[in-house]
């Protein structure tokens, strides 16, 4: 195996590849179903029964029960589908970012705002 086939991992980053897609199929299928309002209502009415319908693995079911985003990703969840689940709980991408980075939501939002400094730094470097 060459270095090219296995490039260095990217810190804090989980590529959604075929292995993840296979592992996460059931969880992502459930999240995809949330495109329909009736399915979102059914999930809220009886979360256990709804998860059972999609045959979530025990890891997936546990991560959903705990609202553990990193756990869902480890269990093969893809963020585009998970965002639909997050929406059911009224969470947006800053809330989800905060949950994954151990920051509070205001801290995560400030972290995003602070990155505007990158523009000033670039202007200083490139003139």
């Amino acid at each position, binding site marked *: 195996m060459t270095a090219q086939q296995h490039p260095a991992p990217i810190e804090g980053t*989980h590529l959604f590849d075929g292995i993840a897609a296979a592992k996460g199929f059931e969880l992502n299928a459930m999240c995809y179903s949330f495109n329909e309002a009736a399915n979102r209502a059914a999930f809220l009415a009886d979360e256990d029964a709804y998860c059972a319908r999609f045959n979530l693995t025990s890891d997936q079911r546990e991560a959903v029960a705990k609202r553990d985003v*990193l756990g869902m*990703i480890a269990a093969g969840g*893809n963020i585009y589908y998970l965002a*639909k689940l997050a929406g059911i709980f009224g969470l947006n991408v800053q809330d989800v970012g905060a949950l*994954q980075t151990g920051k509070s939501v205001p801290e995560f939002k400030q972290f995003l705002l602070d990155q505007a400094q*990158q523009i000033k730094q670039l202007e200083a470097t490139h003139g």
Partner: protein
Amino acid sequence: MAEIVGAYFTSHVPAIGGAIHKGLQQDPYWKPFFDGFDKVHEWLAQVKPDVAIVFNNDHGLNFFLDKMPTFAVGAAHEYHNADEGWGLPLYKSFQGHTELSWHLIEHLVESEFDVTTCQKMLVDHALSIPFELAWPDVDAWPVKIVPFAINTVQHPLPSAKRCLALGRAVHEALKTWQGDERIVIIGTGGLSHQLDGERAGFINAEYDKFCLDNLSKDPDALTQHSIHEMVRLSGTQGVEILNWIAARGALGEAAASEIHRNYHIPISNTAAATLLLEPDALVGA
């Protein structure tokens, strides 16, 4: 003879749609982003396109993991938005240009781009928001569309080199199109952002600048990075730059001029950018 009037690129963060809906364009958080569209409106009023070829990516509305095409081309009479899971108001529908879709498909497959063809295709915020930004006050879109959906969800993703080549093949196909339309090329998404993982919130202004600086004069420079390297540099969702690269290809191999750029950090979790390019020579298709 059809004419390619230029290319329009913009980020498509879902929250932009919310801001439009709530009329927050002048709100201090949103103003630096929305102010970048005055020039876009002026330019579109001047070049008056009637067809748009749009490179974007589906976010789990039309495609699921059961079938995930690398390159999908719409060949529908109409394209509708639908609930993406958040119960938001639906965006306006689009009219397709089916004859042009099939012309492009014929040429692409002949050129060994084995695309997936879609006579039905739901379109999500990635297509609707750039149109809402470009034509904010219309009841119906002034252009017919041919949408391309590039897989940016499930790896392996197509390389930047392949996306540029796809766009260039579209450009070649337009040269033999007999219509007299005025065609605008649109690329949507990006720039650097990452929604998932412990690195969520990652933004890289330096890589974004590299992309923006090179798209006009040297788009091949963007093909030097592997997908893995692009994820490292631009974030897991920053790979949506592939849509921009394909769109740049469709503008043709010749150099283009940047006539407008806006770059702002942050919009939601994203470094947001808007760009207009015009071909240096009039491009008769």
